[in-house]
């Protein structure tokens, strides 16, 4: 009896620690960088302006990642597949945007009204280009393999991502391309306590926030949105209820692709450089964001996107840009180890 009770009492604090880490470990991990640098700044310079600028830039970047991450999360929610080619869909969105506004003749000299309508048109074009591309990928690479083992569609996804990268490579050559800074993205609009808010930040948030609200409303209110949620919950039952599962899955890929296309446009205008390889890193970063928020959870993807954007920005600015991808991936691994279900997600079969 005694031998049995001793380890039991010893296990209680350990178990409590584990529970505590399970609940708050990820949050502590995420806050470590910003809080650490906040203290560092306060001690060294006595002002938080630099951190504030990091946070604003992080928010704008995060908005882009959030749009891409939603594509991952929606697709994962409905077919339990990591759409590896999603980053490339985003890249094609950027390329379409750059080519399209060059075609319709937008330059830095175009007036505000012309610019506004021109960019609105570009936004629509690249959203549809990316959306339809994503639907095509699903049709060609994933649908034939829907009943195959999980490994198979994952491999075709990787295959497609390479094909699209080469499309990008042939389209705009292998080196990063500068594109005209149409919106004068670094130009200061106003500042709060010394923290600059630029045109680029406003554009990122101005496009992202309405899109997010529109999409959430679509999923929550519309008939097709209801069909999407039903299919995500149980495809077989949904089919029995008269939902066309194939169409619904295509629709999900369309929405995911459209958001990636919008992100592509914002990225092109915000960063003013594009290259064929941007999709690979973006895809992994956005996937990290989706996992961080809890894959399958749209709000989680947005939250994750913003957090990852901020971490990236802090790391770019404080540590060294070359190390940023490594830091993001390190976070990805840590999340996978300590809380595979993410911040807002529930336990899934895969991550269990």
């Amino acid at each position: 009896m005694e031998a049995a009770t001793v380890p039991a009492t010893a296990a209680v604090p350990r178990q409590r620690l584990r529970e505590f880490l399970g609940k708050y470990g990820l949050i502590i991990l995420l806050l470590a960088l910003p809080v650490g640098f906040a203290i560092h700044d306060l001690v060294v310079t006595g002002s938080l302006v630099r951190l504030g600028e990091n946070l604003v830039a992080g928010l704008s970047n995060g908005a882009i990642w959030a749009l891409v991450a939603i594509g991952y999360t929606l697709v994962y929610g409905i077919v339990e597949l990591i759409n590896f080619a999603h980053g490339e869909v985003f890249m094609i969105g950027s390329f379409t945007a750059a080519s399209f506004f060059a075609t319709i003749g937008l330059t830095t000299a175009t007036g505000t009204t012309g610019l506004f309508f021109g960019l609105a048109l570009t936004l629509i074009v690249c959203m549809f280009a990316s959306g339809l591309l994503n639907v095509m990928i699903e049709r060609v690479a994933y649908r034939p393999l829907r009943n195959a083992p999980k490994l198979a569609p994952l491999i075709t996804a990787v295959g497609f991502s390479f094909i699209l990268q080469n499309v990008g490579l042939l389209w705009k050559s292998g080196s990063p391309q500068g594109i005209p800074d149409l919106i004068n993205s670094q130009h200061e609009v106003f500042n709060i306590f010394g923290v600059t808010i630029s045109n680029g930040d406003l554009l990122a948030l101005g496009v992202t926030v309405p899109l997010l609200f529109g999409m959430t409303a679509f999923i929550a209110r519309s008939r097709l949105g209801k069909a999407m949620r039903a299919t995500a919950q149980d495809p077989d039952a949904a089919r029995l209820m008269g939902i066309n599962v194939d169409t619904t899955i295509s629709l999900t890929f369309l929405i995911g692709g459209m958001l990636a296309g919008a992100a592509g446009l914002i990225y092109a205008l915000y960063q003013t450089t594009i290259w064929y390889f941007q999709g690979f890193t973006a895809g992994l970063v956005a996937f990290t964001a989706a996992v961080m928020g809890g894959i399958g959870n749209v709000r989680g993807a947005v939250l994750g996107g913003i957090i990852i954007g901020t971490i990236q920005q802090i790391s770019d600015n404080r540590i060294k840009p070359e190390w940023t991808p490594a830091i993001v991936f390190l976070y990805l691994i840590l999340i996978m180890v300590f809380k595979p279900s993410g911040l807002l997600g529930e336990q899934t079969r895969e991550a269990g």
Partner: protein
Amino acid sequence: MSSTAATSPARSRSRRGFQSPPWAEKAAAPILLVLAILLPFLFDPGSAFIADCVLALAYTVMALGLNIIVGFAGLLDLGYVAFFAIGAYTLGWLGSGFFAFVNHSKGIHVGVNAFTSALPGIHLNFVLVLVAAVLFTTIAGMLIGLPTLRLRGDYIAIVTLAFGEIIGRIARNGDDIKLAKIPIVGGPFENAFGKDQTFTAGVQGITPTDKISIPGLDPFTQLNQRPWYYVALVLVGIVLFVNFRVRDSRLGRAWIALREDEVAAVAMGVPSVKTKLLAYGTGAAFGGISGAFLGSYNSTVNADQFQFYFSILILGMVILGGLGSIWGTVLGAWTLTFINFWLLPDVLNSLPSKIGLNFDMTQITFGIYGFLLVIMMILRPQGLLPERRRAMEMTDSEGGEDSQILTARA
């Protein structure tokens, strides 16, 4: 499912087309061995063909390693390049002038030829480097495996991919890391390596690395590919032997059981943690062996070599040949190597200009691989030379005969 194949071999054979007779695997080894030994004598010792063969052999070693992780144990590893990198850096560190100030600039030499003995830096005999590479990569493989133990499927792919990228980043940015500035161990490092010693040479690369030297033979050079070929052949032989022995051992059966159904395997007493870690460790060790060999053969260890593409190249070899199939993997490795280093750059390179397009065929190599992966998965997911059990799994997802008939009709 497997019982149906055993009881009605004639029927399943007719349905799945050609299937090799049972003695084929035993006969294949000696025939291939004789062919492989004779091959270099049919060509000029410095010819490009033999050089491609050396690469094909080195990639075969790597593909066989990845086949253990992905094919046998069913753990999709997208970061296999990490082991190539660690193996290559092991050679870079222990077989070059990289640590120029070690031992007061006199260098450390163990079992190397007279010419190399005069150079600064650490120069160990290739066999010792191989041992070190196996050691390092096995440890690294297990460390990378640890976080994936609780995960399944896609998540494993992502974690291994992230590890591969992190290792790639460290290799690339390693010229920023001054060993003397690392906390705690920095002091002793400064004494041993000098104050400006970096961790890696980044994209500059560690050049030149030691050529393999074997007592009694002329020093290896790029002009004579034959010695390289035979060293690589010996490595492939060892790895093939280990692969066959391990596959049929208790451990190999445990891997396959875990791949087929983890819950059932664990319930039957398969220790899942140990088995998975051994899969990562063994697979990684082969990657390390090949990495060390390639580091010496290429005469440079350069951070540009260690990119995500490379993992996919090796994965493509395994998938092309047939996941879990040893001979299939060998075939896949040779096929893709020759597509990569001969067909695309030498044969098809003028094709785009002939049909009026302006690009280089080698630019789209990976697009072609991607296309190959997609086509393989859709048309022949079991690979060119499928392993029997895997073929059934890939062609019928659930239920035995019935769904097989359905897929055959559809």
